[in-house]
């Protein structure tokens, strides 16, 4: 648009250039004011980190020394878990943990629907929906029993995890679970999980 009494086109360009310079200058100044580091916080030593670093990863990183079998775990389970999860892990006030049927297929999808025909739905359990045995250890240690999380010893935790795996038909009653053997347990749900493929747009996923 022409403004007879206003600045010329060249004038506009100069103004725009000055404006850009100003914005850049402000940007640079703000940048310069943010230090590389603020120096807040205290360095955390290895010794300070260790008691907090309780997570267990699928490759076994984080598993403590100790061991336990399903036979030993039966006692631990009865004492600390059965009141909420049922005597055999069938569920109660808290979630069911055990379900061995149908073997080898998830509790949903075409194969399951074919198997189900007329039956009531089976619950999601360690046997059919947990992809890593190490996660069972991690979760029991961090969160169970709810009134005193972290109160089970490493041996008790290995034992009760072994009992849960055995009840679900994944390992034998005599199999010993420890930092070596637990990550090697292949869970039925191991290959079930896929990344999120939703990404907005028109398609309902």
């Amino acid at each position, binding site marked *: 648009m022409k403004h007879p009494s206003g600045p010329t086109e060249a004038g506009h360009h100069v103004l725009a250039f000055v404006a850009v310079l100003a914005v850049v200058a402000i940007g640079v100044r703000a940048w310069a004011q*943010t230090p*590389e*580091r*603020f120096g*807040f*916080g*205290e*360095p*955390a030593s290895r010794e*300070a*980190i260790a008691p*907090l*670093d*309780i*997570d267990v*990863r*699928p490759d076994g990183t984080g598993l403590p020394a100790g061991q336990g079998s399903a036979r030993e775990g039966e006692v631990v389970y009865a004492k600390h878990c059965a009141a909420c999860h049922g005597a055999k892990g069938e569920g109660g006030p808290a979630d069911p943990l055990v379900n061995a049927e149908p073997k080898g*297929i*998830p*509790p*949903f*999808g*075409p*194969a*399951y*629907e074919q198997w189900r025909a007329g039956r009531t*739905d089976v619950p*999601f359990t*360690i046997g059919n*929906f*947990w*992809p*890593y045995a*190490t*996660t069972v250890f*991690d*979760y029991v240690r*961090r*969160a169970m029993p*709810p009134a005193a*999380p972290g109160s089970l010893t490493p041996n008790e935790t290995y034992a009760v995890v072994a009992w849960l795996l055995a009840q679900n038909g994944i390992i034998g009653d005599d199999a010993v679970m420890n930092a070596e053997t637990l990550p090697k347990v292949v869970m039925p*749900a191991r290959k*079930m*999980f*896929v*990344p*999120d*493929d*939703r*990404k*907005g*747009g*028109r398609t*309902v*996923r």
Partner: protein
Amino acid sequence: MHKPPKVTRRAVLAGTLGAAAVTLRGRRAAAQRASDAPSPYGRLPNELGTRASQEQPKRLPSPTSSRTPLQDLYGTITPADLHFERHHGGVAAIDPRAFRLLLHGMVERPTTFTLDDLKRFPAVSRICFLECSGNLVRTGGEKTTAQALCGLTSQSEWTGVRLATLLREVGASPQASWFLAEGQDAAQMTRSIPLREVLDEALIVYAQNGEAIRPEQGYPARLLLPGFEGNASVKWLRRIELADQPFMTREETSRYTDPLAEGTARQFSFVMDARSIITSPSYPQTVQPGWIEIRGLAWSGRGRIARVEVSTDRGTTWKAAELQAPVLPKAHTRFRLLWRWDGRPTEILSRAIDETGYVQPEWPALLSARGRRTRYHLNPITGWTIGSDGQVLFGIERVKA
């Protein structure tokens, strides 16, 4: 478009005479005049305000959660004491003086930060919604309120420090691609979060709607991931560990994953898809024929709401509602549509469309995309039926299996 009814002088006269003739109305008018008297000299200023005694919106609690009374609220910010709750080990009691946040793993300088340390860093504020991924109750029957249906969504202005600021402080390794966020609650709630996906927006927040965050929202500090399912914004945050792969905790394997029709299960399904809900009129309201402003909320975890469409004829035709500015990304957005109800039974519905072009789906479309045993991220179009008597009820047919 309907025209407003004409007001004639005769109608006004008839109305006035009619009112005068009815003794009951006369008495009511006298009572109103008495109440027009000025209030006696009121109480003096005090330290802490309270709600009007006649206005007492409440959360709707269950053993694992409590729901925001969406139908009782007018704007987009949820009063902090009405923010929904979902805990995995109850409300943790953390002493703010003992609070420490540990950052470690793939970092050059493992560091613990006190609450004061966090507050010394440059602060940022962000208005966004938080929604639980399990936010649909289909089984309450026609006497379901908006709160009972989907009250596990709330919105606040959150203030804290950018995660990116802390990561720079501790010298995060460029190879780090995931981090574990861990809470100090009884469940020691843990989630693995993809670092690059959240780096621009992730905050460690210590304030909500201008004051310290509430105990049930993670006091003294929590992670905040705008647009993500609520449980990923780990409360009572104690530890962040950087790694080059996810940790596969219980909450991202056997929980908060989505079984699909083909027999696989979707994992790390963080983003909340677009959704809307008409909050008025809704059950248990009764409405009269004539002008009704349909009001509601819409939101999307993928960005801004682009449009909300409302149907007043059971989904046959749709009209664009007005959106209340400012429309913020990943935020509850108010929509309103003026409608003249003719008194005939109908159903009113709303559907949200976000800036990616995503259209809030019908329940059958969701079911066929995911299968019968889908559990989370259920955001179907829902609505309210209105009977000839004006009674508003939840439209149960929309979400029948």
